[in-house]
């Protein structure tokens, strides 16, 4: 009876968020029809001056970056052998896997000829950064699928493949870390060829290094962020000491990132841009000040790290700062030379929202039916039922973020 009461209690919220979800999907599908029937020109605000916009800046660059918790945590648990982080690795790998799948779906929207997306498999140009990224993303998505596969094997009690996959865990993780290092940094290398177009606040020969470090940094932040959300949504205990440890690591990496950027600013002698009263300078300070410096300070102080609210909001700022960085590199940094102001069209936003919603839904679905929060032994039927019920408010909570 109490289960029924619980269900009833949440049904109101559930319907509301379900409605929102289906609306987002519906609008997204409409945008998709428009994009595929009328072309990019109608569906997006992209044009000859602004060939890349929201879909590359957010869906692809942020999608890949925010999924980096998968490889960083895999390295922490399996390479560094810090086993106490194991309880949070499965959600991280699931997020990464879903993230990469969504990146590929996002590409299917952005590419002018999406039916040719497989071409890099057979048509090679090793000089191209994009070619390398394509291969890395392909291979790493496969690695992630394998890294996640034990969850599926456990669920269906497939002992044999489970044994095989566990035997190759280490080579798989090493491969995953190498592939991630390559393409996380190469997403920055994409812009190396545009020194004349990208604003000096963001252009640097060190772009690949920045992209890699910031990806590691946001990977930790995302793991903490998600663990917070999940623990509320799924009523699982928060692994706070672990998260605090990760937060400390993240703060350290942020410091490294900041020092590197300062040195690089000196070497390129572009200090002047930091104080110009321009739109770019404002965006830069929001990105660095709000997304790196401030959370770095907060996370460096043990007292704040221990505070769940402070921890949550600082890593949220890191995530937002990361998104700003990628958007600034793709969009803000090009505005000056493009000679116009790009902002995404309604349909671009609609498709992006649809992808995000699909990501949440897929995570929720997998979390509901697969053992990602515990390595088990399926729960007895009664307990499982309870999990199902408590899962429901998740959508409500997540989407309100």
């Amino acid at each position, binding site marked *: 009876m109490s289960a029924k009461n619980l269900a009833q209690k949440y049904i109101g919220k559930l319907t509301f968020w379900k409605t929102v979800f289906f609306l987002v999907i519906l609008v997204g599908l409409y945008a998709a029809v428009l994009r*595929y*029937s*009328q*072309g*990019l*020109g*109608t569906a997006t605000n*992209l*044009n*000859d*001056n602004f*060939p*890349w916009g929201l879909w590359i800046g957010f869906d692809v660059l942020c999608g890949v970056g925010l999924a980096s918790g998968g490889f960083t945590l895999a*390295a922490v648990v*399996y*390479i*560094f*052998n810090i086993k106490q982080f194991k309880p949070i690795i499965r959600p991280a790998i699931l997020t990464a896997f879903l993230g990469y799948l969504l990146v590929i779906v996002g590409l299917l929207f*952005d*590419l*002018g*000829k*999406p039916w*040719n*997306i497989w*071409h*890099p498999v057979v*048509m*090679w*140009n090793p*000089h*191209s*950064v*994009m*070619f*390398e*990224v*394509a291969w890395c993303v392909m291979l790493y998505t496969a690695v992630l699928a394998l890294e996640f596969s*034990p969850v599926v094997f456990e669920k269906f009690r497939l002992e044999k493949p489970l044994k095989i996959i*566990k035997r190759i*865990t*280490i080579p798989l993780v*090493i491969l995953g*870390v*190498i592939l991630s*290092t*390559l393409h996380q*940094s*190469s997403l920055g*290398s*994409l*812009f*190396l*060829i*545009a*020194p*004349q*177009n990208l604003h000096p606040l963001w252009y640097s*020969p060190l772009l*690949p290094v920045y992209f890699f470090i910031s990806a590691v940094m946001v990977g930790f932040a995302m793991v903490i962020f998600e663990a917070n959300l999940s623990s509320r949504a799924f009523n699982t205990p928060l692994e706070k000491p672990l998260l605090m440890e990760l937060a400390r690591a993240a703060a350290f990496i942020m410091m490294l990132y900041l020092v590197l950027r300062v040195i690089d600013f000196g070497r390129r002698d572009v200090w002047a841009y930091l104080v110009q009263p321009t739109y770019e300078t404002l965006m830069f300070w929001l990105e660095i000040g709000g997304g790196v410096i401030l959370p770095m300070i907060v996370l460096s102080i043990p007292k704040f790290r221990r505070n769940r609210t402070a921890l949550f909001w600082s890593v949220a700022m890191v995530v937002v700062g990361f998104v700003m960085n990628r958007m600034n590199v793709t969009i803000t940094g090009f505005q000056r030379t493009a000679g116009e102001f790009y902002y995404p069209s309604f349909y671009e936003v609609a498709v992006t929202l649809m992808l995000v919603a699909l990501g949440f839904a897929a995570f929720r679905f997998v979390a509901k039916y697969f053992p990602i929060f515990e390595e088990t032994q399926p729960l007895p039927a009664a307990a499982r039922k309870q999990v199902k019920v408590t899962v429901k408010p998740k959508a409500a909570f997540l989407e309100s973020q």
Partner: protein
Amino acid sequence: MSYGILFDTTKCIGCEGCMYACREQNGLPENDQYKLSAQNYTVVKSVQDTYYRQMCMHCEDPACVSVCPVGALEKTEEGPVVYDAQKCIGCRYCMVSCPFSVPKYEWASPNPAISKCVMCYERIQEGEIPACADICPTGATQFGKRDELLAEAHRRIEENPDLYYPHVYGETEAGGTSVLFLSSIPFTELGFPEGEEYQKAFPTYTWKAQKEIPNVVVFGGVFLYGLWWIVNRRIEIDNGTMSGTGKREENE
């Protein structure tokens, strides 16, 4: 044997014959937009009384060719940078990378292609010259072998130092281009991009990072495996689980 085009602003009378011929040749619609687009592979523009053309520069070491993930763009032996729409996936990286902002896109099409001047590659293969050079009534657009055109350009500057701004645009810009420009006024006034970045071929900017990839793979692999081995071994020793057979603790 690499061909090129020499354009001389002092000879151009702004008749726009090249724009006409180009549209004819490439089956492009009539339009009155004076900018490069999916409808215009070349345009004639003017600054004060100086006419000049915009078109693909056909770089010697083109950024677009280097960035294309599928090799849809190609620098031919004859000089032209050509494009294969069959290979193209539509990522538009060529547009982002081009130092001269030349490649344009068929934004209105559900099956869009990149559009840019290909120096009438088909005509060159048949032994003809590009349509724009063919129609040009004054010889402002001249087709020929690049090294000969370059020598010719320098000869003109030398013979008429008062007439010309003393620089052949495209000789060194972006690592050298197959299309060369002579002008009566400084190229910056024509809006031609100049600056430190243009003093070398653009693919070199990327190559500096790209060439490290094999190192990352090899050293990364060795480093990570070594790290795992050491960490794992120490844990084994700490736990007293070292069995002497070298068998390691299961990792899951």
